[in-house]
Structure formats: structure tokens, C-alpha cells
């Protein structure tokens, strides 16, 4: 599904190197988690994958089902099936959440040569999915993320993911800012989407989320590299001992 090889990234406007050779392979149907200290480059990896400006890839590659991602526009990556749930979802005053969702869904359908959803069909689907995430109708009418609480923003990300049905989902700290119930809700939303053809890359600081979304593989990222890879037990180790031991061991 997703294959990242020796990815090196620096900031475009400064001589600051952030990713120093990331290697990552996620097979279809797998759930991988990335943990790592603040500033280790986790969000940067997610932004570079989704095509945000401001970063320069100096070496390496990233492919989605064999297609080179790094050459594509962000919207092309989305149409190819990549989705990023943002660590900090963006507020867009003046653009209604519904308009946003419908424009996005139909733009992707169009890009894939599928027929656009009618207003009626769209409404039906969105209402149903919003309901399971406990997003009420009033929130759907509001401008994108404007005035949403932290938790509401994160649930809105999952709603977008559910509507767009991507095959590669990157979740950047989707658990931060969520209360216990909301975390369960979000995890259920994610689990409902799990299937053999869909993969997840879950960035998190806490083992707690991984109790709900069971990962197949856990990676530890530090200073722009994946320094250790293991099973779910690695997350427990981090939870109990922090990163010090792992960092020391690698050195």
C-alpha cells in the first residue's frame, strides 16, 4: 500500500533538515502506529506525504500502490486514496461544512471518473455517518471547524475520512484533546473503516488510543528517523518507561 524509502526532507526556506532517511512499508489492511518525542518529525512526515508546501524532499521516495506520491498535487494524492487527519484541523470561516464535504466528495469522484453524488444522496449518507460520530446537524451547517471544540474538530476529521473512504489513512494525534468517550467514538469510527483494502498510519503519544485501535506494527521515530520497529508491546514499553531506554539502546 504505502512504501516510503530513505525519505529526506528539509525546510524549503531554511537549511533545517527534519527527516533523515525514513523507511516505512505498510501493507494493505495493516494498522501501523508511529510514536516519538515532540519535534521528531511525525507531523512533517504526514504533511510531506499529503503534499503541503514549504518542505523540500532532498532524497528518497514515497509510493501509494506503486504510484509516486511526491510528484502529485495534494488533491491528486487525495484522489489516489490518501487521507490525512490533521493534528490541528483548520478553521475556514465562510465555507459551510456541508458545502466543503460535498465539494470534496464530488471532486474526488470526478477525478476518479465516477459519477457525482446527488444532493439528496449526499445528504443521506452524511447524516447517517455524522450520527454515529455524534456530530449534530447544527455542526454540519456551521463553517468548517469554526467555533468547534478541540474534540469536535477531531470528530469532524473522522467524518471527512468516513465520507471520502480513502485507502490510506494517516491520523496525526487524532486522540489529543479527546475525552474518554470521544476517544472511544473516534476509535469506533476508525475501526468501522478497517478492512482488507484499507491501511492506517496512526501517530500518537499515548498507548491508550492503541487499546482501541489495535496496531499490527509500532514504530518509534526520533530525530527524523524510524529508530525502532516492533509489535504492540513497544507502545506499552514507551508508556511505562518513556523514550530514554529506547534512545540509549539505539545509540
Amino acid at each position, binding site marked *: 500500500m504505502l512504501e516510503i524509502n530513505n525519505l529526506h526532507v528539509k525546510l524549503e526556506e531554511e537549511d533545517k533538515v527534519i527527516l533523515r532517511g525514513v523507511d516505512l512499508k505498510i501493507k494493505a489492511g495493516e494498522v501501523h502506529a508511529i510514536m516519538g518525542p515532540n519535534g521528531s518529525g511525525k507531523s512533517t512526515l504526514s504533511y510531506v506525504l499529503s*503534499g*503541503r508546501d514549504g518542505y523540500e524532499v532532498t532524497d528518497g521516495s514515497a509510493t501509494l500502490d506503486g504510484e509516486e506520491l511526491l510528484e502529485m498535487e*495534494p488533491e491528486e494524492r487525495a484522489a489516489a486514496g490518501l487521507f*490525512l487527519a*490533521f493534528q490541528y*484541523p483548520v478553521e475556514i*470561516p*465562510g*465555507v459551510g461544512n456541508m458545502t466543503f464535504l460535498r465539494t470534496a466528495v464530488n471532486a474526488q469522484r470526478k477525478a476518479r471518473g465516477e459519477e457525482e453524488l446527488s444532493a439528496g444522496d449526499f445528504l443521506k449518507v452524511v447524516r447517517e455517518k455524522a450520527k454515529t460520530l455524534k456530530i449534530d446537524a447544527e455542526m454540519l451547517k456551521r463553517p468548517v471547524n469554526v467555533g468547534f471544540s478541540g474534540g469536535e474538530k477531531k470528530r469532524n476529521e473522522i467524518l471527512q475520512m468516513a465520507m*471520502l473512504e480513502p485507502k490510506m489513512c494517516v491520523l496525526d494525534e487524532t486522540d489529543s484533546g479527546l475525552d474518554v468517550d470521544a476517544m472511544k467514538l473516534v476509535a469506533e469510527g476508525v475501526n468501522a473503516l478497517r478492512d482488507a483494502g484499507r491501511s492506517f498510519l496512526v501517530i500518537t503519544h499515548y498507548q491508550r488510543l492503541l487499546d482501541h485501535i489495535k496496531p499490527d506494527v509500532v514504530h518509534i521515530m526520533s530525530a527524523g528517523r524510524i529508530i525502532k520497529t516492533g509489535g504492540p508491546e513497544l507502545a506499552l514499553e514507551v508508556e511505562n518507561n518513556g523514550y530514554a531506554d529506547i534512545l540509549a539502546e539505539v545509540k
Partner: protein
Amino acid sequence: MSVAQVKQDALAARIADLSFAEKGWLAAPRRAALDRLSAVGLPGKRDEYWRYTDPAALNAPAAAPAALFDPGDEPQVFDQIDRVKLVFVDGVFDAAASDDPRLSGVEIERLTEVATRDSHWASGLYGALEARGQNPVSRPQAILNTAFATDGVLIRVTGQAKKPVSLIYKQGSTTSDVILHHCIQLEAGAELTLLENGAAAARLNTVMEVEVDDGARFHHIRGQGRAHERQAVTHIFARLGKESSFKSFTLSANGRLTRNECVIEMTGENAVAHVAGAAVGDGDFHHDDTVFLTHGAPGCESRQVFKKVLKNGATGVFQGKILVKQVAQKTDGYQISQSLLLDDDSQFLAKPELEIYADDVKCSHGSTSGAIDETALFYLQSRGVPKSIAQSLLVLAFLAEAISEIEDAEIAEDIRTRLESWLERHER
């Protein structure tokens, strides 16, 4: 040569070929206007009020030629709206192309047809509000209009107009130079929606004087012609009675030069005045909104909402003033002017002003100029929305506050659609 002399010479050249009709009741206000004009001369580049907009093209003896604009089979603004159409071609009323002007509660006449009558209701209005609006800053292009207008409509509203009255200005010649003067009187409790659209002329000078009596409601929605090379200077002078309401919205797309002045005086308690504009300019485009709002009675509310989207070297100007007189306690004044600059070549120049002599007032004003929000753009793109559509969504979101000033939902939707298709045509 002194500045005054330069102005006088410019004036002499400007009016040399204009015909001065001195007949009927119009003669007196016109002669008075000519005297006033001679006293002030034409505006100069060094005048405080014209610091951001060069009046040279408006002052020139002849209009600079402007190519006719062919929108193809693209629908025009207000096409979908049921309305009474009055068509002017190069400033001349075209009866054959117009609708039957009879509308219950509304009296519509052509300025040139009634000017020779002995007495007319408009004789007290023509030039009167314009003259009041010359203080504290003179607006010579409006005086020139009063003195030399060649046509216009006189509308008296005594009841609730069932349909909007729609003035459609067509441009027939590449060199047309047009001066139109309209007078509108809304009697107590009356209501009218007035629409204006069309390229009009290579150079257009319009004045609209609007008297809104107690409790009357006036809605004005204007779509300024899309012709790329046209130039226009327009003035609206309005006086608002007790509990009356005046709402004006202008959509401007293209046009080499546009100066829209709006001078509103609230003289009755609890009057409401809203002036709004959405302007989109690509390239050789200079758009100036100059507004002067006087709160002359207690409890009045005013709103100015101006938004401009500029690209490829377009220039936007906003000069807006709220004057709150001492009697005007409990004034509620709001003013915002914002521009969205889609590149580094475009510019927005704003001069918001407040002058307040009452102590119990609520007035706010703000002016900003910014680029498109890159983070929002990326967020939309990351969801699969192509960049051009994402940009249009953000531009429309930026303009939304101005469009929401239009009360009629159908007309507001029409304006939105026109903006959307403009954005589509001007994606790059």
C-alpha cells in the same frame, strides 16, 4: 499656472462640447449647478479626496475609447429576476427594448420628457441632495452631472412596488460618453427595489438622488458592467427620514476605472443605512469606493461592508467616513473594508475615518488587506478539492459578508452565481 487656473481650464475643456439645456424647471437647478461647478473646478490629482484615484480620465474632454464587451451566451446578472426593465443604450432611453413602465404604487418618468413641464415633484429634488452632499468635500463630477445630464429616470414610489425596477445600461459605441441623472422619491411607508446593470458607455457619469421618507424602504442592487475598458464615476446621494431604510449593494467585475461615491445623510431617528460592495478585479482595474455617512439623528444604524478581490496588478481603494453629529446619540455604526490580494502586484489603499461629536455611540471600523489563507487552501486540497476550486471557495467565503447585505435571497444567490462564474473565468 495656479492649481485653480489648471482646474478652470480643465473644466472649460471638459464642458466645451456638452449641451446645456435651459428649459422648464430643470433650468434653475442646472444653472445653479454650473455656477457651483465654476467655483470649484474639476477635481485634481492633488486633491485630498483624489489621492488614490487619478481623475484625469474622468476630467478629459472626451472619453477614452472602450471596446464593447461580448459576454457570449453567458447569463447576465438579474436575468432570472422578474422585474420592470428600462433600457438605456449609450445613455439614451430605448422604449422599444423596455417594458411597460406601469407598476402599481410607482410612477416612472423619463427626465427629458417631463423637464419642460411647469411644475414637477422632482423639481425640489433634482440637484438638491447633490448640492447638500458637497459639504465638507466637494464632488465636482456630481455637480457636472447635475448641470449636463442628458437623460435619466424620475421615480416616485407611493406604495409597495410589486417588482423591482431595473435600469439596464447597454453600450452601443466604443466612444460613448454618457451622463445620466436619476431622482427617486419614496414617500412615507413606500418600498422599492431598484436594480442597475450593464456596461453603459465608454465613460459613464451617473448621479442618483434618493429621498427616503419616514418608514420607507429602498433597496438598491447594482451590477457594474463587465466591459474591461469602461470607465465610470457614480454618485448616490440619499437622505433618510425617520425609521426609514436604505440598502445599497454593488457588484463590480472588471472595468478600467470605477469611482463609486455614496453620500448618505440620516436625518430622522432610527433610520438604517447599509452600503456594501463586492469588487473583483483582474489586471487593468482600478476600483474606488468612497462613502460618506452622516448620522444626523439619534438611534440610527449604519453599516459599510466592502470587499475587494484583486489580482494581476488590480488596485482597490476605499475611503469611508462616518460622521456622527452631536444630536446623534445611540448611533450604531459599523464599517469594514477588506481586500484579498491574490498576488504581490495588486494593491489596496484604504482610508477609514470616524468623526464623532456625540458621546453615547457605538462605532467600529476595520480595514485589512491579506493574501489567500495557504493553510486553508492546503486543507481543502488535501481533501481532494482542486486548487482552483479551493481558491474560489475561499474567495467566495471572503466576499460572503458583503453579499449577505442583500436582503432578497434570490438576488443574493444571483450575485453569488455571477461571482462564481467570474472566478471560474479568471482562474489564472
